[in-house]
């Protein structure tokens, strides 16, 4: 009896038998990863420049989705909802930064954690009061589907991945080329010297917080059609975003994006063998392993 050959054969057989679902899960993992990357890049950008862990990020995501619902209901245009929600929540982010975080510059980091946590509670309960506990639905702008093996797969999911990629790409170009991008990168590296070079650092902070908030809102609107929108929806996503921000290296934009896709793919593959609810454990395992063996992040080339 050739047990080894059998075992290998079984392995190949298993892969062959599951080829379709593996490809489907790869697509799923990338789509979820892109949305997660959009949330996480705002979070990591804010942390990188201000050393502020923004606990209200999930609520900005949630409010973004709600603003999307309201604008879509009144105007009928999903794209208008996306743009308006992004801008409005960016403005809200700027206002929150000026009123709550700016006075705390130079204080113990704990104060900013408490402040953003406080903001998150207020925003969550505002949403509950304003929109009620019943989940709202946000209709997707395109409803077509294509057949991926035996599964009919919505085009909209692919569109989410593409749009998220485009927004992140736009952010990259903005940071890489414009004057404001140079200001942001200089401030991230050396806040004091940036200020001595005439860069208005307090306003750079406000701008970055607004950008991060706007990106959270955009992801809320984009992702809204796939889930029910409720006041607590930010919690799951921000938790996952925190995980990928740590796994990718705090404050490292490229690392967070890579980690978002990496963790989402792992979860998607795990969901083939275990239930999706159990697959969530994978991201925590990755988090714990990262903290144990590479606490500066998986995607940082040289740990400092």
């Amino acid at each position, binding site marked *: 009896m050739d047990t080894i050959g059998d075992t290998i054969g079984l392995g190949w057989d298993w892969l062959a038998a599951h080829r379709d679902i593996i490809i489907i899960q790869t697509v799923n993992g990338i789509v979820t990863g892109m949305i997660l990357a959009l949330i996480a890049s705002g979070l990591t950008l804010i942390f990188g420049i201000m050393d502020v862990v923004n606990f209200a990020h999930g609520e900005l995501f949630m409010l973004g989705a709600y603003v999307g619902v309201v604008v879509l209901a009144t105007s009928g245009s999903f794209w208008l909802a996306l743009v308006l929600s992004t801008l409005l929540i960016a403005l809200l982010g700027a206002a929150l930064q000026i009123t709550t975080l700016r006075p705390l510059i130079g204080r113990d980091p704990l104060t900013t954690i408490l402040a953003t946590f406080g903001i998150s509670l207020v925003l969550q309960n505002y949403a509950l009061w304003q929109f009620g506990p019943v989940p709202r639905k946000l209709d997707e702008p395109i409803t077509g589907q294509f057949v991926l093996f035996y599964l009919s797969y919505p085009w909209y999911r692919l569109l989410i991945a593409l749009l998220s990629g485009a927004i992140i790409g736009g952010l990259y170009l903005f940071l890489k080329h414009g*004057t404001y991008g*140079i*200001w942001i*990168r*200089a401030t991230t*590296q*050396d806040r*004091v*010297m*940036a*200020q*001595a*070079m*005439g*860069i*208005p*650092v*307090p306003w750079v902070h406000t701008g970055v917080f607004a950008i991060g908030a706007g990106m959270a809102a955009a992801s809320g609107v984009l992702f809204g059609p796939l889930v029910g929108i409720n006041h607590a929806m930010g919690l799951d996503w921000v938790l996952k975003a925190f995980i990928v921000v740590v796994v990718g290296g705090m404050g490292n934009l490229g690392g967070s994006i890579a980690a978002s896709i990496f963790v989402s793919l792992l979860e998607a593959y795990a969901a083939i063998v275990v239930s999706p609810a159990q697959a969530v454990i994978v991201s925590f395992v990755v988090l714990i392993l990262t903290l144990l063996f590479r606490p500066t992040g998986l995607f940082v080339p040289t740990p400092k």
Partner: protein
Amino acid sequence: MSAPKTAAEPLVAVEDLHTFYGKSHVLHGLSLCVGRGEVVGLLGRNGVGKSTTLKTIMGLVGPSRGKVLLEGQAITGLPAHKIARLGIAYVPEDRRIFKLLTVMENLRTGLDRQGVTQARKEELLDKLFAYFPRLAERRGQAGGTLSGGEQQMLAIARAMMLEPKIILLDEPTEGLMPRMVSQIREIVNVLHREGVAILLVEQNVPLTLEASQRVYFMEKGVVRHHAVASELKVDDPVIHQYLGV
């Protein structure tokens, strides 16, 4: 003691400055002034508060008492970025290059200001690269990959991009090779010829006496002595008194 008066209104005047780091009292009523286009040396042993003086003028450290005047206007308490825009540039002791930004991007942190036309920017860069050909060669390279001397050049070049009225220069020759030191000396001359005032903190006494018109001697957070640089020799008793080991 009070700052000696120069003929015209000084460019920068510091009056009775008291600065604390936490509970430690660093500056104890420091006064000095720098005239337009004047190179002024600030000498003293380590820890007497020379760097703190520069940081306080720049607005990076808030004084608990006293005033900093720029062209007669009080700038005490303004945030550093406003002070930079008013015409004071700062080259810190540890250079503080933006290491992940390219040489060009480092320069653009000072160059991309409101009211500077594209033509003016190019003119400034051309002039700068004529002084610093090394930086021109390395304009696309990350600041952190430059040698210590090149980083010092970049730190000074970056400050020059602000077209400042005065540059606060903190130990520019520290840790540099002799060849680099003479280059720094040359740059100070160039800046002086262009009418930029310099407040120079240095450990290198011969260089300071050569480059400056006047020197202040600091001890324990105050100015103790003040002299015309050309009247001092390197082995002057005054120098021994305030700097001798």
